[in-house]
Each structure stands twice: as C-alpha cells, then as structure tokens.
C-alpha cells in the first residue's frame, strides 16, 4: 500500500481545558485534554489536533504543559495550533512533545514566520492553517479571529504562498461550513490541494462519514479533520476508517 489517509479528531482547548471534546465516553474529567487524548489514542486516531482557541500570550505556558503531559502518556502524532506567533512559541511546543505546530493569524500578518520555523525545525513540523470564506464564485478570502474578521487576502494564493515558504502541510478550513455539518467546501480544498505538493488537511463542516470520504476522493485531501461527529459519539474512528476503506482509500489496519 502507500501512505494512509489520516483521520484527525480536533480538540478545542482554552486555558488548558477542553471546551469541545469527547462527551460520550466515561471520562473522570472530560475537561482534561490529556484524558481526551488518551481516549482518541486508544480509539486508533491517526493523529490528534489541539487547537488553543483561547490563546493569549499569557496562556502559552498552559498549552505547553498540556502538550507535555499528553506526550507522557500518548504515543501518537500531535499537532498543536492557536496563538503561535514566534519561532520560540513553536519551539516550546515541539520540545514539549508536539510533532507539528499550526500557524494561522500570525502567518496572515507575517508569512515569513512559516519560513523561519521551517528553517529552524524543518518543514515537516510547520502546518499552515488557512481559514477561508467564499466571497464569490470560486473565490475565497482569508478570515481571522474565528472567521469574523476579513482580510481581503485571496485564500488560495495565501495557501500557495505559505507552501512555497516552507509549510509542510496545509490545514484548510471553510469558515462557511464550520459548525454546519453540511460537509467540507470540497471546491476550496481541491483548488488548493491540486496546486501544491504538500499534504492538505480538509477541515470544517463534517456531519457524517461520507463527508470524510468526499474530503479525500473529491477534495483531494491527504487527511480529514473533524470534531463533533467524533466528540458526540455519532461515529467512531474505526467507523471512519471503515468508511474510507470501503471507498477504496488506504487506511490503517
């Protein structure tokens, strides 16, 4: 076979506590990111993503501690995003046990951050996270601050530029679809994936397992990220793998 399509549950964390995560399994403390990570580790998730949604400068140390404690008990790949603004922010997370760091807003105002991290720690650890909204037919713009603030920057051009600057992966989120459960914006994902040679992670809008399949087959993504369908017990990681496999997509056995 070849490299497997990855199924990536994403946990939203604020102030060191999970605000959107598993709430169907019997966790002693469902707000503890480490417990959540263990649950997904045991469930066979291919990677895990922590998104620090309350990321303030003061809160950085809290996330580093969460990553450190997670890496002590979970031996699975971990991507951490939210509030990464400097090479030192990235380095602290990587040393604590993250394998990849996702940069978002900071790379909108200063794309060079991507090349700075890549030069120091390697492209393989830099994920460029792009939040996009459709503004016209086949045209998307970058939005920041959880999709509320427009930037006027063309999202596809921005994603391509960040890949050129050394991002080893692109995490593409449709802010139109995020939270809708209507499925990924496949045209957005595919438009970017077809123009880069780095892996692309589809994000935003998953409501069922077919959406994951579509992300790979129609969006041309290498990995599919989802939150609520896993957190609320609607689907398991194993069911996601089975759905992908049934569509002829290589997955972990």
């Amino acid at each position, binding site marked *: 076979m070849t490299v497997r399509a*990855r199924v990536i549950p994403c946990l939203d964390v604020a102030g060191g506590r999970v605000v959107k995560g598993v709430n169907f399994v019997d966790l002693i403390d469902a707000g503890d990111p480490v417990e959540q990570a263990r649950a997904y580790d045991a469930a066979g998730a291919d*990677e895990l993503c922590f998104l620090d949604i309350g990321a303030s400068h003061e809160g950085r140390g809290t996330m580093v501690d969460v990553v450190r404690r997670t890496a002590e008990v979970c*031996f699975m790949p971990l991507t951490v995003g939210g509030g990464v603004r400097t090479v030192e922010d990235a380095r602290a997370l990587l*040393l*604590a*046990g993250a394998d*990849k760091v996702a940069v978002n807003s900071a790379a909108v105002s200063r794309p060079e951050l991507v090349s700075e991290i890549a030069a120091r720690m390697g492209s*393989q650890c830099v994920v460029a996270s792009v939040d996009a909204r459709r503004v016209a037919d086949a045209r998307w713009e970058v939005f920041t601050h959880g999709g509320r603030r427009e930037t006027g920057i063309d999202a596809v051009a921005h994603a391509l530029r960040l890949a050129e600057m050394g991002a080893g992966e692109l995490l593409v989120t449709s802010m139109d679809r995020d939270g809708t459960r209507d499925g990924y914006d496949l045209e957005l994902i595919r438009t970017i994936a077809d123009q880069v040679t*780095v892996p692309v992670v589809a994000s935003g809008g998953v409501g069922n397992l077919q959406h994951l399949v579509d992300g790979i087959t129609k969006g041309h993504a290498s*990995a599919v990220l989802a939150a609520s369908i896993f957190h609320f017990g609607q689907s398991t990681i194993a069911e996601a793998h089975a759905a992908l496999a049934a569509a002829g997509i290589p997955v972990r056995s």
Partner: protein
Amino acid sequence: MSIALIDYGAGNLHSVHNALKAAGAANVSVTAHPQVALTADRIVLPGVGAFGACAAGLRGIDGMVDALEQRVVREGAPFLGVCVGMQLMATRGEELGSHPGLGWIPGVVRQLIPAEDVRVPHMGWNDVIPATPHPLIERGEAYFLHSFAFEGDSVLATTNHGGPVTAAIGRDNMIGVQFHPEKSQRYGIALLERFLEWRP
C-alpha cells in the same frame, strides 16, 4: 541497564524519552555529556529537522562524536537512531547543502521528489516492509514524517511512497529507523521493547 539518550537540541527528545520509559527502560539518562555516552549500555540518538543543523548540533558538543564512535563502533554498544538520528548514520546528507554524517553506513540522504499522488513531506502511517530478517524489525504500520530519505547500503526495511523508500538501516549492533517509534503507538513501543532486549 543504562540508556544514554543524546541531547543535542533535537525536538523529539522528550517524546523519545517518554516512549523508552513506556517500553520499560528504567534508567534513561538524557545527556549532552560524552562521559555518560561512553559508559552507557545502550545509546539512542533522536532527531528531527534539517540534517545539516542536526549534524552541526551533534558536532557542537565537544567530544560527543568521538564518544559515540568509541562506544558504538568500537565497543559494540547497541545503538538506535530515530528519524534524523538515523539519517546521521549515513555518509552525508544533502539538505540545504551537503553535510557529512557519522559515516557508519555508506549512503546519502536525499530529498524525496514529489510526483502525482506522492506528496512531500511523506507524512502519515505507512508500511514497514522488512528487506532482510532482523530481530528488531517486524512488518507493520508506523508513523513517518520526513522530506529526505536514506539511499545506500544495509537497508533493513522499506516503505512505499512513489517507490521504495528506506524505512530502516543497520548493521551489527546499530540500527536506525526513519519512522517515529515514539509516535507509532503499539507498533513503536514494541520496537523499543525489542531494542531494550536486543543482544547483537
């Protein structure tokens, strides 16, 4: 049994440390001291990032390369290199210029070339396919995260990413794996357990 985990600023140091503990290693010294490497029963060299930067980091520790040569090559202590720690066993690496490696296994570390359905970095779970029987290498699925790969002698296992890509190399008492055992869940911990029991 003492394990020296070489600390030269590599990003995955703590993850490898955690995984060694999970595999049952009780006495792991995270160390930048050549003296500790010289007296360790086993040595693990982690590594992520650029070959040249890692090689420079390792050479930046006065006496460390000599200590590794002494303990691993001449005295035969079991050695495990992980990811760039494995690549450093090669003759040289061609990432951002050409840089000499430790030269323990003849070969060159070169960039993977993207192609249709072959995205670079090679990122994710992929097969470990034994090329020759080895007590540490079992067929399975491991997590890979790299843009450069070893080409040369003593290949113990390959994976497939647009063609065969080296997944493990080794000879005698030394082995290196391109994938990340510390991130490969059960498969990875089991490999580390076998390393701890290995009597080459």
